[in-house]
């Protein structure tokens, strides 16, 4: 025992030092480079993780279009954009970087955030990457986009574009990595090699493109995985509460109450913070939309909320979405 003790201690101490080194040398992660050494650190890091990241990229092909996606589990779960899958249960094809084509089926997603999922239906152990944890990516992080801009092209290969996260909200992440049609659904990585977002829409300004933050997938993972797709069309037929919100750390803060809606009739007010619906904790606006859209008009839901210091609860009968 005595002989082991010093060894263990030394290991423990040295690992502490290692950690400290890693932290101080992670200058490539989110710092603004000052000189060639800093720029080289970013370049070396990118080169180091790029080849692994590329292995998990797929081109997605269906009858009516082409996009990109990224494999995130060994059994072939693919994250992409909702506008790439279109609808659930659709037979699609995904193409690995080596050109090999595999059968797949579309699962769920949301037209609101543009998050989408599909699954490779052939059995196998597919190359996959890790996704970043909730609330980890932030403005200023270095990132890189990969995808098949303009469609799959084996001779050209996968195209990488470096950039930084320039803005982030609950349901949109913006970067200055450049995108083009065909990139849709492809992954945005941080320099830890983890997926932080999925390419969604290009902006008129080439350096302000839009991505679906990975948080949108985390929050509604099971819903999407089970093949539920939230569409604007569906929302029209579903129940309607009548609030617009902003996510805060305590819950969803009401920014606005729609005139004549159920929310107004029952007395919900601006700045009330909604924290659960039928017992489910509310983390994002999209989650609220999904829960409400699971109900029909005239169905009732129980909402718990804070108003100032007070904790309140009420039961509200949903109305119909007003037609514009």
């Amino acid at each position, binding site marked *: 025992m005595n002989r082991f003790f010093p060894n263990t201690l030394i290991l423990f101490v040295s690992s502490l030092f290692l950690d400290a080194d890693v932290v101080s040398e992670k200058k490539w992660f989110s710092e*603004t*480079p*000052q*000189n*060639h050494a*800093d*720029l080289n650190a*970013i*370049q070396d890091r*990118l*080169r180091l993780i*790029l080849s692994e990241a590329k292995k998990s990229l797929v081109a997605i092909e269906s009858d*009516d*279009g*082409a*996009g990109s996606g990224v494999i995130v589990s060994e059994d072939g779960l693919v994250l992409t954009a909702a*506008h*790439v899958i279109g609808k659930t249960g659709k037979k699609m094809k995904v193409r690995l970087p080596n050109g090999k084509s595999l059968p797949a089926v579309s699962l769920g997603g949301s*037209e*609101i955030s*543009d998050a989408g999922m599909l699954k490779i239906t052939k059995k196998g152990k597919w190359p996959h990457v890790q996704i970043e944890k909730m609330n980890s990516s932030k*403005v*200023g992080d270095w990132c*890189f986009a990969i995808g098949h*801009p*303009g*469609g799959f092209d084996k*001779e*050209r*290969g*996968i*195209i*990488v*574009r*470096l950039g*930084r*996260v*320039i*803005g*982030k*909200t609950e*349901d*949109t992440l*913006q970067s*200055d*990595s*450049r*995108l*083009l*049609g*065909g990139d*849709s659904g492809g992954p945005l990585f941080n320099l830890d090699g983890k997926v932080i977002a999925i390419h*969604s*829409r*290009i902006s008129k300004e*080439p*350096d302000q493109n*839009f991505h679906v933050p990975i948080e949108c997938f985390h929050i509604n993972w099971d819903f999407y995985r089970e093949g539920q797709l939230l569409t*604007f069309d569906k929302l029209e037929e579903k129940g309607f509460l009548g609030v617009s919100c*902003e996510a805060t750390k305590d819950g969803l803060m009401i920014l606005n109450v729609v005139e004549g809606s159920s929310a107004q009739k029952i007395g919900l007010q601006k700045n009330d913070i909604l924290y659960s619906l039928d017992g489910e904790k509310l983390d994002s606006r999209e989650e609220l939309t999904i829960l409400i859209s699971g109900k029909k008009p005239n169905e009732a839901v129980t909402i718990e909320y804070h108003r100032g210091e007070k904790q309140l609860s009420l039961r509200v009968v949903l109305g119909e979405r007003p037609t514009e």
Partner: protein
Amino acid sequence: MKILNQIILILLSTLPVHAYTDLNNSELLIASDRLNGSSIQNAFGSSKEVAIQATVRLLRNNKLIALGSIVHPSGYVITKASSCVGAREAETFDGEKYSLKIKKRYEETDLAIYKLETDKNSFQVIDWDVDCNTSEGSWVFAAHSNLEEIRIGVTSGLPRKIGREGGVMGVLLTTDTSKVKGVKISEVVPQAAAYRAGLLEGDIITEVDNRRVKNQDSLIKIIGKKDPGDVVRIEVNRKDEIRKFLVTLGHRSVTFDLFNRNLQMSGPVSKRKDNFEMIIQHDLPIGKESMGGPLFNLDGKCIGINIARVDRVSTYALPAYLPSKVIAPFLEKLP
């Protein structure tokens, strides 16, 4: 014309406008700290200054049409030949203007050598690095066309040959099933080659350059062997009347731009972006008027000449070994 369908099918975001999120409420990264912001440009240090000094603006009627790369201290520059037709004047970073004379043109690489008309013999020249590691994800930069800033990005994709595209008429075809032999035009691209020659939708192409065409493939084969600018004789059957036309073929990229939403979003692209022996690709945000200028690595060494703006995310550069080899015999003869 199969490629056209593929191009149209490329999926683009069609989300309704109300799906756009207002990011005004969130903290945005300040412009100077973004990839092409001033802070990052400054991190390139003296490489940046040298790059700007070794690049020139090439003008026609006072309008920028291309950039040039200074390859000799007495004011010889190389540039993209097909972008530079009619260039009369060059402007350097210090605002000095010089008249220009073309000295040599290299068709294969689409390069041309020009001379700045002056006795000055102290221009900053590019420093070729023919053995540089340009593997994917390497920093690259080029002078902005204002010769004040630089534009930054990384290399991407595989170094490769870009094949020839051939000329196009600008028509969509269907093989006619009626008893008339030939290939029917189902659509004429507005303003393109066939349109200007007077061909119409519904015309059945029966002969090209006195050769019978039976189906789409044989027609595409004959036309595909020609270059943009070549003239072909087309014989068509128009409502049982034989008519003859001369069609001057166009560039594929230009002809089908109308149909290509990716290119619509990309802004103007280079006319010639095909038929290069070898290219490296990068994502610098530069326009087609920046072609012909040098591409640098972090150390300020010239690793290529920008030769074609392809789309919003892609520019091709000839790797340094190619242009330096092509112009070496010319430079050796200089005093």
